[in-house]
């Protein structure tokens, strides 16, 4: 994952929760299919429009709710970064662990219109609207968390060290 990302923006409101991102019924579907159901309740059709690399700009308490693997499905849908006024603590942790870069930026929502081009810089911890030239500073994350978040999260490490395996077929007992 590059520390600098250029892309286009999708705008969302406050309180975008875990169940909107990954609806309960989608959890038991195959992982590659789960992305089709992202935001089906609040923004039907979005999953078919989003393109690889797109960025979400949202309001307060993004990701509030359950411990289901919401950042994974957002990554699978194509999202490269989320910028929000604030993030739920459990969601923030999940983003670190699943390697979905996020930035908390006060005032970010007012800075962008839908489909604006955006540049996000994790070295300088800021985002720039490439249409207007306006820029917003982000809250930094501790270096250890930033490094994990920008290098794919904790799961590849656990697999490479032989702690876990991704899939297990059920065998006759």
């Amino acid at each position, binding site marked *: 994952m590059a520390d600098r990302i250029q892309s286009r923006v999708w705008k969302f409101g406050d309180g975008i*929760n875990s169940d909107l991102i990954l609806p309960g019924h989608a959890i038991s579907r195959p992982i590659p299919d789960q992305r089709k159901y992202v935001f089906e309740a609040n923004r039907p059709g979005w999953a078919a429009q989003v393109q690889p690399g797109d960025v979400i700009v949202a309001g307060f308490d993004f990701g509030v709710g359950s411990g289901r693997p919401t950042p994974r499905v957002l990554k699978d849908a194509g999202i490269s970064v989320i910028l929000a006024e604030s993030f739920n603590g459990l969601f923030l942790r999940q983003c670190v662990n699943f390697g979905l870069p996020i930035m908390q930026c006060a005032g970010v929502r007012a800075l962008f219109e839908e489909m604006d081009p955006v540049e996000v810089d994790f070295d300088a911890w800021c985002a720039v609207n490439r249409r207007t030239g306006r820029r917003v500073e982000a809250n930094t994350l501790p270096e250890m968390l930033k490094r994990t978040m920008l290098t794919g999260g904790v799961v590849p490490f*656990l697999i490479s060290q032989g702690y876990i395996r991704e899939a297990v077929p059920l065998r006759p007992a």
Partner: protein
Amino acid sequence: MGMNIAEKILAAHAGADTVKPQDVVEVTPDTIVLIDVNFQIPSMGWEFLRIADPERVLVVFDHYVPAKDIASASAHRLGREFVRKFGIKRFHDVGLRQGISHQVIGEEGYALPGDILVCVDSHTCSAGAFNAVARGLGTAEVTSATCLGKTWFQCGETVRYELEGRIAEFVAPKDVFLHLANVYGAHTLQNMEFHGPVVEHWEIDERRALATMCAEVGVEFALFPCDRKLEHYLHARGRSGFSPVMPDPDARYAAERRIDVSGIEPMIALPHQVMNNCKPAGELNDVKVDQCFIGACCNGTLEDIRIAAQIVKGRKVADGVRFIVTPASQNVHRQAIEAGYVGTLLEAGAIMTSATCGACGGSALGVLAPGERAISAGPRNFKGRMGSPDAEIFLGSSASVAASALTGRITDPRSV
């Protein structure tokens, strides 16, 4: 400057003299709770090949009990294989001692004052009622904690609540929480610490109901003090040798709020969130409901079933209304039968289900159709949570839910 409860527990586990907001600490959790969801592989979990310490891990099946489909049956089977492979001693399989993990943690005394307890599930802040630091970590981190035996926390600011005054009849901790959620809204990246005579008055299950709900305002940890009542509760479960953790007299708080509970009425959260979105039940009498649900991690206790039975005794559930009661554990279910509550509820037209997360998560046992409306004693009312995204979920206390089941409309329990 002194420390509050969360800071003290984090500092003790991190081997640090002090911990303050923004500090990141690495800690070894005392207890890691795995649930059936962790064995939904590959969607929610991974196969464990090596784990750090089987003594610190316990396994509870709760989201899908009994198994509802091949996927959940497979998760249960993988969970049982995990228990055998690693010699997990504390295992709550479908049967005698099964229940919702947050309820079982209380019943068995698995969380002790000063402990750190973690689980995948967001409502793990429930165990803050036991004077412990507890929270949901999500699928990847609880897996990592199980493998490596450690996890991290970034310490948040703490808001201290002093609950005072005389709580009215039929006003539950749920109503107090909904009042706080309505007035103060999000506590994102913050801890909530509760004190005061109302807390002392509440039984441990009631404190746990409030602690569990704190997930809905985005809290990191919900903390309660350790008092004689909690010590007695834990001694009755064979637990001793723990050290209560109380805040220093000069502990720092982001805010200190005195709440007079005397004026709090039965409260209802409106669809589709609780933050800044609640009203008194008495103002919602025009709202018709199709389904009334008592249960889930916050409100499936014996007290919830007792009050429901008291309200519906000798009466009937309204025509066209489904009243579903889900005990939070097999233990609660047995006690509710012995006390006669189950008979009273069935006579009134309620149905009792197995001890499981049930209708709250919308995956089984009481799914809502498009256009339907429910009042639920569960913790969460996100759009689509209990089934169709075109359904509506109102949240209230078990008393409010039982009263609504009798009238078919959202009803203040003091009016029936």
